[in-house]
């Protein structure tokens, strides 16, 4: 793994030599008989070929997850796979090569052609999306280490009221928008920066992020998968794709008998009951609202997008260049005392202030455009959500809402049909017929 330094740089930076002032003045180190000049050790990073190993593991895990969820319908298998994924992608790979974070690499590669995204990262981005398009969110079920750790911690789940769930469910889209903006502008990869569990995977990290992670786990004891449901930007991509999925886990293996046993078994609030016909008044109101919304949406999106332009300055604040420019300006106009490490470093580069200001102002402009897009995006998401709440779907059986269902398989066990399939009970009637008999007792 280690090789001496001499050959490493053979000619790579030769061109710089000419620019190096005083290079000709360099003295040779003293030659001492019997003492060779040591060479410093430069350990190499993890080999790139191992990245492809990771991709292979990902593909395997995805396949296994699909098989276990859709074919074997094995909750236990999925659970073990989740532990395995947590061990490999989480603790062994320390959370870094991850589908969630890859969004940003892709966004940066799109906006900055000089940044190349490696095929491994591209695979991490695309494979789960493709799998979801056909099989639903099996990636979330047992492959994603962040999902896995939360899955393990969902010990005592409680119901989140649907109104709250619906509203909080928008946060991932906002987060996704912000993450793409910051990645595409080369500011920072905020998803990775604020990844709550990566500090656990590494068994070290900044105290604050450890606290955040611990808080998420505590919340996760009661609210299933809080990160996945209310923050995960990759989940925001998976949700719509999952709705389109060709095959998707079903709660009953065959036909639903509407026994309602699974009704409250999903910790993630994904099981929807069969619908009843809307009242005429409701239907009218819904239809009216829908027409109104459809007509207004473009306006709302445009207006919010326009208003988002003003966010250029606040958004740019996260960018180091903009930060530096503000600081230098404050120092220049005497509004602050002293200098910071950053402004000191800036001054010693001899770069003119005006150039920095111009760069920062250009950034403000860039972020104003980004803010416009972000505003439009958020408005669009909200509009779609509002339209969504006015679409009345018809369901005749208990089924998993495909967008929210992570294919974890927890509900299988609660289905008498499944129990019958597994041979745990003789037939469905054993369970379903009992309520009438027991009603009087309890």
């Amino acid at each position: 793994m280690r090789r001496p330094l001499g050959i490493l740089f053979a000619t790579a930076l030769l061109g710089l030599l000419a620019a190096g002032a005083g290079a000709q003045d360099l003295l040779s180190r003293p030659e001492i008989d019997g003492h060779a000049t040591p060479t410093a050790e430069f350990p190499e990073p993890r080999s790139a070929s191992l990245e492809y190993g990771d991709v292979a593991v990902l593909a395997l895990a995805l396949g296994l997850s699909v098989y276990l969820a859709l074919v074997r319908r094995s909750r236990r298998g999925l659970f073990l796979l989740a532990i395995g994924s947590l061990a490999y992608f989480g603790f062994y790979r320390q959370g870094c090569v991850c589908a969630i974070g890859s969004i940003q690499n892709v966004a940066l590669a799109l906006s900055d052609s000089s940044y190349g995204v490696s095929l491994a990262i591209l695979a991490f981005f695309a494979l789960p999306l493709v799998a979801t398009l056909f099989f639903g969110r099996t990636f979330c079920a047992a492959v994603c280490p962040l999902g896995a750790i939360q899955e393990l911690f969902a010990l005592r789940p409680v119901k989140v009221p649907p109104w709250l769930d619906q509203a909080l469910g928008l946060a991932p889209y906002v987060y996704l928008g912000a993450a793409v903006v910051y990645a595409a502008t080369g500011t920072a990869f905020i998803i990775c920066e604020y990844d709550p569990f990566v500090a656990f995977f590494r068994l070290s990290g900044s105290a604050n992020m450890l606290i955040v992670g611990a808080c998420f786990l505590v919340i996760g004891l009661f609210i299933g998968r809080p990160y996945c449901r209310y923050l995960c930007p990759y989940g925001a991509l998976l949700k719509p794709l999952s709705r389109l999925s060709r095959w998707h886990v079903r709660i009953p293996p065959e036909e639903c008998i509407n026994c309602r046993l699974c009704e409250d078994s999903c910790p993630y609030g994904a099981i929807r009951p069969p619908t009843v016909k809307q009242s005429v008044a409701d239907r009218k109101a819904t239809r009216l609202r829908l027409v109104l919304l459809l007509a207004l949406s473009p306006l709302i999106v445009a207006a919010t997008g326009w208003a988002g332009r003003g966010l250029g300055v606040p958004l740019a604040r996260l960018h180091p260049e903009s930060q530096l420019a503000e600081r230098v300006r404050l120092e220049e106009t005497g509004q602050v005392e002293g200098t910071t490490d950053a402004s000191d470093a800036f001054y010693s580069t001899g770069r003119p202030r005006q150039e920095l200001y111009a760069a920062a102002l250009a950034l403000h402009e860039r972020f104003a455009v980004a803010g416009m897009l972000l505003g439009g995006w958020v408005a669009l998401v909200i509009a779609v959500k509002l339209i969504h709440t006015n679409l009345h779907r018809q369901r005749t059986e208990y089924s998993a809402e495909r967008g929210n269902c992570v294919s974890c398989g927890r509900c299988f066990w609660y289905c008498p049909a499944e129990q019958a399939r597994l041979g745990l009970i003789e037939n469905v009637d054993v369970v379903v017929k009992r309520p009438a008999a027991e009603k009087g007792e309890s």
Partner: protein
Amino acid sequence: MTSATNRQDRRQFLGGGARTVGAMALAGFSGFLAGRSGKAEETVWQIDPDVCTTCGNCATYCVLDESAVKAVQCFDLCAMCDPCPGYFDLSHQERTTAAENQLCPTGAVLRTFIAEQAGVPRFEYYIEEKDCIGCGKCVEGCAMMNGSLYLQVRHDRCVNCNQCAIAIACPSQAFRRVPASQPYLMKKKALAATQRRGS
């Protein structure tokens, strides 16, 4: 009944179409990016030592408890001085390895007598990597003279976060992504010295 089936069929058809379009779009998107990135290499984080100001953030901002950044000695640039400003504390009174004379707070710089040459003793200075915490104190001291010491991300320790925490905290923006096949950056001067010896 028939209408329900029709609706079912229609829904399936629409779903199938959307899926196909989605899959093709994803494939096209990935293909475009893969094509544009070409054989884009994995990248790793590294410090450009010519930009680094040894502010000390490397030692404290790394996600690892013991930073992945450590001091590196460019032996070709080191003049093997007896009074080494990267080894001795500014207030040292004798040139010995005694604790009170040493600059490094963790004692990670090792001083080894090599030979006496032209009446002057020569010493080799090594970085004991397991003890180095990347504070850059020796680097700063050495920079006052020959500047043979510099800070580098050590890739046997670095977990190569997608977003390096030190890179964000770096005041001089010396952290940058470099191709994984050339994971270290040298000072221009050190490079020149290495090449001079090689030639």
